[in-house]
């Protein structure tokens, strides 16, 4: 057969690898800063500028690690592995470059806009609508390039790593589009199309599957390629990898509601989430064992080779967090873990251990290959391995400890039936754990610097191989599958069919969960006394979203005695019907705010936002002095009310024209009340709007006539 000569381009994988390491360092550094902020509020620098407060920094950290560090890691693997597995160069070099620079541009836009306070207020999907559109375009460019490569391949069979890449691509596209339905209000402001319970369900269907299809499945593709390469032996069981793939994507998509246990989400959806999460143990552990068993007979190499060391711990961490995840989905365990540092520990076992170590292993293997050199120092790489492992432990253990400690303190009652501890007591006892955690993160980051030095030295000692020559025969047009492989020939050789099947498989889960919540009205019983926000409250709510208050405060009281006693009546689904977006939050570094309205006077909030410790000694909340200088953006009131009504919030027709009059009237009332408490402030300052919003939260239900 005539062999065709072609070249693998190494420049694109090199670009992505550099970007991956660079953004990884930035993302982790921001994480370390955010971690120290929780222990030392002065590091928020909020007296000097509003841009670096925890509420704004933490989304930059999470987005940077997920989409910049892991994202570029995925693309490094895809652009290196796919051409070699399919025996063809990437389809289009221009598209590769557009993909690379487009993605980096998105990252820069994301970092800048998030720090400036442009956010949708939905976790891991904080980016505003123009960036959402940009992401869609670049994702499609990536898809076209990947499928172009697949269609021009010289190898009929798609290796399992490629399946994982295809399923990840199509599912991330679906998740991103569905969760990003939003109605633009201005250039950098939009409201989520969904409200309250529905918004929460869509968001966590997205949020959970972002973990599944951005942090997990593409990295499993990476594992199935680079682990056998590094161990120099094929994967333990290719058959198992087939089962792993289909069952994993089948089950994963259903598990999202486990993020909303004991919330106002309908019970049936919570149960579905739990059931599928438990089932997920099987495929996850199948995959983990497949990875570990690949090293059968090669364990001696693990002692020597830093690449394999990283891979072994990465796959082990994958196994640990995929066991922990289902356990956290049990309602009784979730009662402890939800809103606590346990969740933070759980995701960092995944992010530092699985994604981090997988990436480091890949880099230590790949960079010497790309530069045709030997790794500069194995010793240094081993040192990185031990430092990284220590970092993970020092990060996770204090978080687990802190979670249980705060749980037991939160639910402690005195014999006479009073809560034993104030919220601030709990905060104070966990601050030391925050310090240790931050040290753990710092140690992990030091390891990364060792790697950077090691890899630069390696690159300097070799010569970059711009392209590698290879040859293979083209695919025969008329191909008859060998006997006995009918099923196999049906799917595995047909990338489009694989794409469509994956989409159907993941689509079913989404539809079954989402549609009933939208269609069955009774799922969200309406409460007559719940009314839309006033214009001033709406502006205040947008300030609440801008400052990322949801990063530390939930607005969802679960039906437990210790929560109802502490915060007030538990939250009902019908209370959130006008919340575009929902602000239930996922972590309580500060107390829940679902019933904060009218709990304190306006002057309390005024003093508290200016200097939290003046009202709550020992508080670790940043201060917000800029809210006392910035004026309320009244120009936007009109389009905000208009957008809300378009989504079904019952403001009267033509109300947008007179909304600002109501806004000013309510603001005047608040300033008048403050004046009685000897506080002088102009009524057009942002703090007034925020106070109006805070005083409204959770109060409507109290107007409900007693039955």
């Amino acid at each position: 057969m005539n062999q065709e000569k072609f070249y693998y381009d190494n420049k694109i994988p090199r670009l992505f690898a550099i970007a991956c390491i660079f953004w990884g360092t930035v993302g982790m550094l921001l994480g370390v800063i955010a971690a120290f902020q929780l222990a030392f509020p002065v590091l928020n620098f909020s007296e000097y500028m509003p841009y670096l407060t925890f509420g704004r920094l933490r989304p930059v950290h999470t987005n940077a690690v997920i989409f910049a560090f892991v994202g570029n890691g995925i693309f490094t693997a895809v652009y290196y592995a796919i051409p070699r597995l399919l025996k063809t160069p990437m389809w289009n070099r221009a598209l590769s470059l557009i993909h690379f620079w487009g993605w980096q541009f998105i990252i820069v836009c994301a970092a800048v806009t998030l720090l400036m306070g442009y956010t949708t207020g939905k976790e891991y999907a904080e980016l505003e609508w123009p960036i959402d559109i940009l992401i869609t375009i670049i994702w499609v460019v990536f898809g076209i390039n990947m499928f172009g490569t697949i269609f021009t391949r010289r190898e009929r069979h798609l290796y399992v790593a490629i399946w994982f890449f295809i399923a990840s691509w199509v599912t991330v596209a679906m998740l991103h589009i569905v969760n990003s339905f939003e109605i633009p209000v201005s250039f950098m402001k939009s409201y989520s199309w969904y409200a309250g319970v529905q918004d929460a369900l869509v968001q966590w269907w997205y949020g959970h599957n972002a973990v599944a299809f951005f942090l997990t499945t593409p990295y499993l593709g990476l594992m199935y390629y680079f682990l056998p390469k590094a161990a120099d032996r094929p994967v333990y069981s290719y058959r198992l990898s087939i089962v792993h793939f289909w069952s994993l994507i089948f089950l994963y998509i259903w598990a999202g509601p486990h993020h909303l246990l004991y919330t106002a989400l309908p019970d049936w959806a919570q149960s579905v989430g739990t059931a599928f999460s438990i089932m997920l143990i099987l495929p996850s552990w199948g995959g983990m064992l497949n990875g570990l068993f690949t090293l059968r007979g090669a364990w001696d190499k693990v002692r020597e080779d830093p690449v394999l060391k990283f891979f072994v711990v990465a796959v082990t961490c994958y196994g640990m967090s995929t066991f922990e995840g289902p356990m956290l989905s049990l309602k009784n365990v979730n009662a402890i873990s939800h809103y606590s540092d346990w969740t933070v520990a759980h995701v960092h076992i995944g992010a530092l251990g699985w994604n981090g170590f997988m990436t480091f292993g890949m880099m230590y293997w790949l960079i010497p290959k790309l530069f045709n050199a030997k790794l500069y120092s194995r010793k240094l790489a081993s040192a990185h391995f031990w430092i990284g492992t220590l970092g993970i432990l020092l990060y996770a253990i204090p978080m687990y400890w802190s979670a249980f400690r705060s749980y037991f303190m939160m639910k402690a009652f005195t014999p006479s039936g009073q809560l034993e501890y104030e919220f601030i007591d709990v905060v104070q006892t966990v601050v030391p754990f925050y310090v240790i955690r931050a040290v753990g993160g710092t140690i992990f980051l030091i390891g990364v610097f060792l790697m950077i030095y090691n890899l630069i030295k390696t690159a300097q000692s070799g010569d970059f191989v711009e392209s590698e020559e290879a040859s293979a025969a083209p695919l025969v047009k008329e191909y008859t599958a060998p006997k006995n492989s009918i099923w196999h020939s049906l799917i595995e050789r047909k990338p489009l069919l694989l794409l469509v099947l994956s989409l159907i498989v993941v689509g079913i889960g989404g539809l079954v969960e989402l549609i009933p919540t939208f269609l069955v009205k009774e799922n969200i019983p309406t409460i007559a006394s719940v009314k839309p926000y006033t214009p001033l409250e709406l502006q205040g709510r947008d300030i609440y979203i801008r400052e990322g208050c949801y990063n530390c405060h939930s607005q969802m009281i679960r039906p437990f005695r210790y929560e109802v006693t502490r915060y007030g009546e538990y939250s009902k689904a019908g209370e959130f019907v006008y919340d575009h977006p929902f602000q239930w939050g996922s972590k309580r570094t500060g107390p829940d705010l679902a019933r904060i309205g009218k709990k304190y006077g306006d002057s309390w909030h005024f003093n508290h936002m200016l200097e939290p410790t003046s009202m709550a000694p020992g508080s670790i909340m940043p201060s917000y002095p800029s809210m006392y200088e910035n004026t309320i953006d009244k120009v936007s009131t009109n389009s905000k009310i208009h957008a809300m009504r378009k989504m079904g919030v019952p403001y009267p027709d033509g109300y947008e024209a007179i909304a600002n009059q109501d806004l000013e009237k309510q603001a005047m009332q608040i300033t008048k009340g403050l004046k009685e408490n000897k506080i002088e402030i102009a009524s057009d300052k942002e703090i007034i709007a925020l106070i109006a919003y805070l005083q409204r939260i959770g109060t409507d239900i109290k107007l409900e006539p007693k039955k």
Partner: protein
Amino acid sequence: MKFSTYLTQISGVSIYPIISLSMFVVFFVLMIFWMYRLPKKEIERIENLPFDDKK
């Protein structure tokens, strides 16, 4: 809130869980069947695809 209350209003709803269960079972049975039908030689070739660039 009980979801079953709303489900009972759909006529013939009792068939739904049976259908979905059979879909699951059929899907996985087919997959496992397919997996075992894969000829060993074929598997060996595919699982060695990552090493083709060495040749």
